[in-house]
């Protein structure tokens, strides 16, 4: 009898995990799409680059999704280049930096790097916007929530379009 209960519980957990996994896949897909769409509402300082560089630092939750999605696509009239970095030093000259760093300290370093180099920083990490990241994405109950640190954006000479701001929760200033 006890074994049967365990079997049922395992099956239920597997089902739940499968659901979560499917939801996560869907969120990742949306996130991958959103990265490009954010760029449409953002005005970055002109660096004279011929490409629009999206850099993903640390773990890649998208697999080949980003490459597939942006293959042959253009953002702001420029061909998209996807780069994957594991260290801050690898970020280089980017337009958009998607940060999946789990370590708060290194994540902050990435934020600071982005701020210094006028890079649009995006992450799903909690408190990302409050810490100086520009766009924080949350997926809650299959709903998208966007949090924007407008002060950080302005400090990085990045202008964010009103339509995007109208959707977002705007954070001003940076938490100590």
């Amino acid at each position, binding site marked *: 009898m006890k074994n049967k209960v365990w079997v049922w519980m395992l099956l239920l957990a597997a089902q739940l995990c499968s659901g979560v996994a499917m939801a996560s896949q869907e969120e990742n897909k*949306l996130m991958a799409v*959103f990265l*490009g*769409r954010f760029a*449409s*509402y953002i005005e970055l300082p002109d660096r004279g680059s011929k490409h629009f560089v999206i850099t993903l630092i640390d773990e890649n939750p998208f697999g080949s999704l980003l490459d597939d999605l942006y293959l042959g696509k253009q953002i702001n009239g420029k061909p998209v280049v996807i780069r994957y970095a594991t260290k801050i030093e690898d970020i280089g000259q980017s337009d958009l930096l998607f940060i999946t760093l789990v370590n708060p300290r290194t994540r902050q370093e990435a934020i600071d790097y982005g701020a210094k180099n006028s890079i649009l920083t995006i992450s799903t990490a909690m408190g990302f916007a409050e810490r100086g990241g520009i766009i924080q994405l949350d997926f809650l109950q299959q*709903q*998208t*929530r*966007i949090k924007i640190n407008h002060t950080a954006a302005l400090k990085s000479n990045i202008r964010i*379009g*009103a*339509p*995007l701001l*109208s*959707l977002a929760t705007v954070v001003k200033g940076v938490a100590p």
Partner: protein
Amino acid sequence: MKFSDLSIRLKLVALLGVSAAMALVVSAILSLVLTVLSVRDESLRHLRQTADIAQDNLTATLAFRDNASATRMLASLASNPRILAALISDDELQPFSTYVSPAASQPDVAAYLAQVAALAKERHKQLHVEREGFASIAYGYMFAVNPIVFDGKTIGTLTLLSDNVILKERISAFVLMQVLVSVLTLVIIAFISIRLQRVFTTPIFHIIETIRTIAQTKNYTVSVNTIQNDEFKVLYSHFNDMIAEIRERDSQLSRLATTDPLTGLANRRNAMEVMQTMVTRARRKQEPFGLVMFDIDHFKRVNDQYGHPVGDAVLKAVAATLTRAAREIDLVARIGGEEFLVLCDNSDLKATQHIAERMRAAIEQTEVFCGSGTTPLKVTASAGVYASIPESEDFEVSLARVDAALYRAKETGRNKTVNWEEE
């Protein structure tokens, strides 16, 4: 009552009024159609403008699948009470966010949205490939469907539903105004028609009145005149010509009725009428009235010997002599073949006898030419004379007496005047 039974005045007023009313109705219908089209286009343009404005912000909500923001933004449409509903659909036409006005009927809105969704499905190419929206008016509502385009691609559609209240109100206001203006215009047209009809009816009534006057008075000397220089002038001219012709014919008929055609003297009938008048007046005024009756002596012989043309010439010559010898107040008439009657108004026996004798002597001196190379013919005439203050208005008594006197003149030798004497 038939139209043909109406007076010309009413016909003209009716024709002018109906013509103007027809023009007014056609103009009103055209204006109404143009206004409906204009108001319709304007209403749809406003709806599309509203959709365009809303779409700018809503694009981001759909782009980032932010349903909450989309719902919040759509809810701001509540400030426009005419908006019944708004729907954002994704690129697979699945509803993403919906707003329905609290004042709207939910079942109606659901039905309307279903109808528009079906249309949007039909126009998939227009929305997704051509990236062009569409708007139209349906029964009870109007709608606009805009593609939500992001980065050159249609990622969904925005559908706005609005009621037709403003459209109906504006059309109703226009119809009301049109009716009021039409009624006012018809009143003015009726007034103008009544004034204008006089231009046509006044000359007609003038002619009718003239005809009536002529019929009552038999006075054919009247004529009609107009200052108008149109067909009425021609009508008046022809009417005057016709009256002149009637006047001339009347005159000729009158002459024929009262005149002896051979001698030009008054005929018997005219003589009798004038004598009745003279007798009546003489009796009323107790004045004497004289009669002389002449008969050409042996006139039958003249006819037999010289022929009727000479006889006629004799009659003419005698008539001319009598006319010359008569006073202005006397009337000389031929009352028979060779018999003449002279009516001497206000003449006693002496004066009448004097006139008769003067006439007889003049006849005796008259020469009638019967042709070149022949001796002029001379004739004599006998005359009976009678004069008195009439005892009655019956002139036959006087006529019989003067006839009797003439008979005695004939009996007693001819070429003489004989007074009537009571036997």
